[in-house]
């Protein structure tokens, strides 16, 4: 019983270590194949697939969250008579936390899972193998452009998310709840610092983009070529990405804002 449990733990940790090894190998071989001029159209195609097609969900969610933040913040702040700080509160929360985190979660759900499913299916139907046999390296042709595309796109989506959120917040606060627009914007401007807050939010989303696209590519590339293998891989992408985003968010916040 005890020995059995030990064995299980051993096997489990071996499995984790070896899959981390495979993930690292995939990443390094994708990075080694630096995008050359032939790869640029492929990357542009991926920016379209992963970025342009995600705009709608990002804008809608950003709008909803910005509006809710303003509404919630207002009910709290108005009790202590500091509703002029509403703009500051909404902007800080969006730029440093919610913007990078929620857009990364949405990105994992929309774009990450699509990448996993696409690559998993290409593997299952031997498209990757046949490309290899044609003498074209699927890592350079399929994996690398998706990596760079996803890496570029997420920080941009997070910026859009924050901006739409702030705008929605101003609509709710200024146009609906009647917070004075001068103080809404000027307190925000004074309190938010470009390097202290905006840049750190951008750094977060760069890290998240890297992690999410890496997980998505690895899960697809390493999936079992079966329907169950594919569904497991897609689920894993969303679950692992989400957990990593939240855990990393904690440590990044600790590193950048406290120390």
């Amino acid at each position, binding site marked *: 019983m005890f020995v059995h449990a030990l064995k299980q733990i051993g096997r489990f940790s071996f499995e984790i270590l070896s899959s981390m090894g495979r993930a690292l190998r995939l990443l390094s071989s994708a990075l080694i194949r630096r995008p050359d001029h032939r790869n640029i159209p492929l990357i542009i195609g991926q920016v379209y697939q992963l970025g342009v097609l995600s705009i709608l969900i990002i804008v809608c969610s950003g709008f909803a969250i910005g509006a809710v933040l303003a509404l919630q913040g207002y009910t709290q702040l108005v009790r202590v008579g500091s509703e002029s700080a509403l703009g500051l509160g909404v902007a800080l929360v969006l730029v440093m936390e919610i913007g990078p985190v929620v857009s990364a979660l949405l990105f994992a759900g929309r774009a990450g899972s699509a990448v996993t499913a696409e690559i998993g*299916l*290409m593997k299952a*139907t*031997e*498209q990757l*193998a*046949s*490309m*290899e*046999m*044609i*003498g*074209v*390296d699927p890592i350079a042709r399929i994996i690398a452009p998706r990596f760079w595309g996803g890496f570029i796109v997420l920080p941009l989506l997070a910026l859009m998310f924050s901006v739409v959120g702030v705008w929605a917040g101003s609509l709710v606060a200024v146009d609906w709840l009647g917070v004075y627009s001068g103080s809404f914007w000027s307190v925000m401007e004074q309190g938010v610092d470009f390097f202290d807050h905006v840049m750190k939010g951008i750094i977060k989303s760069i890290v998240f983009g890297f992690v999410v696209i890496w997980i998505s590519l690895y899960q697809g590339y390493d999936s079992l070529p079966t329907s169950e293998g594919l569904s497991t891989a897609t689920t894993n992408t969303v679950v692992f990405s989400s957990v990593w985003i939240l855990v990393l968010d904690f440590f990044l916040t600790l590193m950048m804002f406290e120390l």
Partner: protein
Amino acid sequence: MTRNSIVFDNVSYNFGKKEIFKNLSFEVPAGQTVGIMGPSGTGKTTLLRLMGGQIQPDTGTVFVEGKDLKKIKRTELFELRKCLGMLFQSGALFSDLTVFENVAFPLKEHTRLNGEMIRYLVLIKLNSVGLRGAAHLFPRELSGGMQRRVALARAMALDPKLIMYDEPFTGLDPIALGVISNLIKDVGSVYECTNVIVSHDIEETARISNLLYVLSEGEIIGQGSPQDLKKDDSPRLRQFLNGLPDGPVPFHYPAPEYMDSLIGVKNTKRTIIKRDD
């Protein structure tokens, strides 16, 4: 026959505990059409994957065009593959590209031909498999047999020195079968391309091959020209060639006794069928 396109030297390969090949050695002479036959599940597809360098043998070496696939660098392997063609069992067409783009893909990747030249070449290849009219369709709009004809056109697009075919005859109607097998034969005789045909279709493979290998349970149980094999009277070979359900070559995948499985005898692991009874 001096030069060999492919040499297998004492190759063993296992999937986990399942032994697929054990000390397998054989050669594919250059410019010949070689048929490798065997019942399904013997590892014919695995054999082709070893030849393509997609998997590495556990022991032994595979040489393709004189290169040791184990020692070769990754870039060299991809360079080598440019002069190999492989027809996958499933076709393995790129599902997001049209039939035309699928056949054009190797040409666009590996040549500097202009668009017009590529168009000519693609249409010629598609015409030879009878699917010029389907150029604008997507693979999902074709039947399985048609997909594999497109895949064949794609495998031949760069006029490779060596083409490997995984079950090229299955899923084809009699007319297409005739055309395709003649196409393969012509590629071999006219362009002096080495053909490796892996198939369980004895008749058709024997018709166009110069040399046959019969594979069973990880070993070669018969080899020679089609005429030689017809005369060979080893029982295992006869069973496969004549299509008898029972004999030295088992029809069943290794399993517990049939009756035991049905009535649910415990410890079924112990009662594996012996094949020499």
